[in-house]
């Protein structure tokens, strides 16, 4: 298989993700398997590349939530097909993020978006869902040996829950083991500083950049 031909497949995967075309992604992914193209590289240079381009369009305000969600569906459709074909040695342990929406808030659009983009960026993401009590978030992070707790809220009324998570971490002696990042409509850098979070991200793409910064660009544990 020539590099050129491989690259044609990767580009096609990337474009299909960007075009929100789930069916086309599946079709190309099956052909990648059939042609014995390296699945790991097809994911990295195809699916993830497409999702990163979508994230860029989101930052540029050409794509919005519906588009990103559809791109993400397309990416996951491809991952489902390609993941079983990844070699063992290609699977290094990656940094783990526990993500959730604090109790009291049932909005999870922002959280889902961050999850998708972190997935695409190569982090291992454990999704606790929405409306999660602070203690449960901490327990999950400890049980999962998570490197990061990512919290989102869309409502001012649930911001206290973010502070609780950090307090529980401190009281249980786990604060240094995990980084806490926060985001969502009503959250600001000053709020993040006040509650002692490790970082604040104003948008989903910014959350990815924030983690890259906190971990000095390494997604591996």
């Amino acid at each position: 298989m020539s590099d050129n031909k491989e690259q044609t497949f990767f580009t096609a995967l990337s474009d299909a993700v960007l075009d929100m075309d789930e069916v086309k992604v599946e079709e190309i992914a099956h052909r990648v398997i059939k042609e014995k193209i390296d699945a790991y590289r097809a994911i990295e240079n195809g699916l993830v590349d497409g999702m990163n381009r979508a994230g860029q369009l989101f930052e540029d305000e050409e794509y919005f939530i519906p588009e990103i969600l559809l791109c993400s569906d397309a990416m996951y459709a491809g991952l489902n097909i390609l993941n079983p074909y990844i070699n063992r040695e290609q699977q290094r342990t990656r940094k783990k993020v526990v993500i959730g929406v604090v109790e009291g808030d049932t909005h999870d659009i922002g959280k889902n978006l961050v999850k998708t983009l972190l997935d695409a960026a190569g982090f291992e993401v454990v999704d606790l869902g929405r409306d999660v009590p602070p203690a449960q978030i901490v327990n999950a992070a400890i049980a999962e040996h998570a490197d990061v707790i990512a919290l989102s809220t869309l409502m001012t009324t649930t911001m206290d829950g973010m502070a609780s998570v950090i307090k529980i971490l401190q009281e249980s002696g786990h604060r240094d083991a995990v980084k806490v990042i926060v985001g969502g409509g009503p959250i600001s850098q000053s709020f993040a500083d006040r509650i002692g979070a490790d970082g604040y991200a104003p948008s989903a793409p910014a959350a990815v950049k924030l983690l890259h910064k906190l971990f000095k660009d390494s997604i591996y544990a």
Partner: protein
Amino acid sequence: MNGITPKNRLLDVLNKKATDRAPVICMGGMMNASIVEIMNSTGFTLPAAHDNPDLMASLAGAIQEQTGFENLGVPFCMTVEAELLGSRIDKGTLACEPKIKQEAFGSVGDVIFRDIDEMLESGRIQTVTSATATLSQTHKQLPVVVSMTGPISTAASIINPMAFYKELRKNPANAHRVLEYVTELLIGFAARSVRAGASVIAIGDPSATGEILGPVMFQEYAVRYLNILTEAVHGFGVPVILHICGDINKVRSLIPGLKANAISTDAMVNLQKLKEDFPEITTMGNLSTYSLEWGSPDKISVQTQKLVDDGIDIISPACGLSTSTTLANIRAMTRTVQGE
């Protein structure tokens, strides 16, 4: 008071007539002021007041009396409509507002269209209209504001929101059918509220922000159905306040196309600038609810005075209040506007 009632003052502002000063209100619904402090001192408590019209009226009355907000606002949640349409609701607790436990449908194609008139005779719409009827009789000088959940937010409360947002793009025909259905229910709810004595209808549509939808879909779905609802309410002879969540920058140019009598925004929006750019808009807002919860009365007073000095037409909290906000802080806000 120099002769003008709070009700007339608010209606005058909404009808673009000159008044002595800006009203200071809290619209209810997603932005209600049922703080724990008031509930504990009066014994009129949530979640019981969500279901009981007498308790709902009593709590709304107590909030008005203690905070100094110049209106009565009901209900205290944004789940009335979704519950009626079949979603499972968690009624919450004293300190935590009700929320959708499980949306009724998985996708726009699954929605079962039920008889609207039948639905309007059932559920907590009766609670809200009955409380409205009581309040409009017991507080004749104050406007009763009935807060409703906007079309997109209602639809995203009865259909899994992730699926719903995707289907706005993938399945527009069915998405429009659902939004027409939901909007018709909301119009019926508004009609009954007005008949019960509501002076103003407020709409909060937090799932329909420009940040989520982008300008194209904001125009196609949000503006369209909000305007259908607003014009229907105008047909009942009542003005409409519309609260838009989040940063409106991405849809700024579309705001003048909204037919609501006043536009309320979140704290990050510069309302003075919005007024400058679009003088025809009646602005409402936008005292940070973060300040209201964490700030000192003095700081709140300064921030409120700035809104007044900026010429914001109606002063109100910018978002949903935390139930742990103190009465002293809310009073600092209302008293500043009232010049006390």
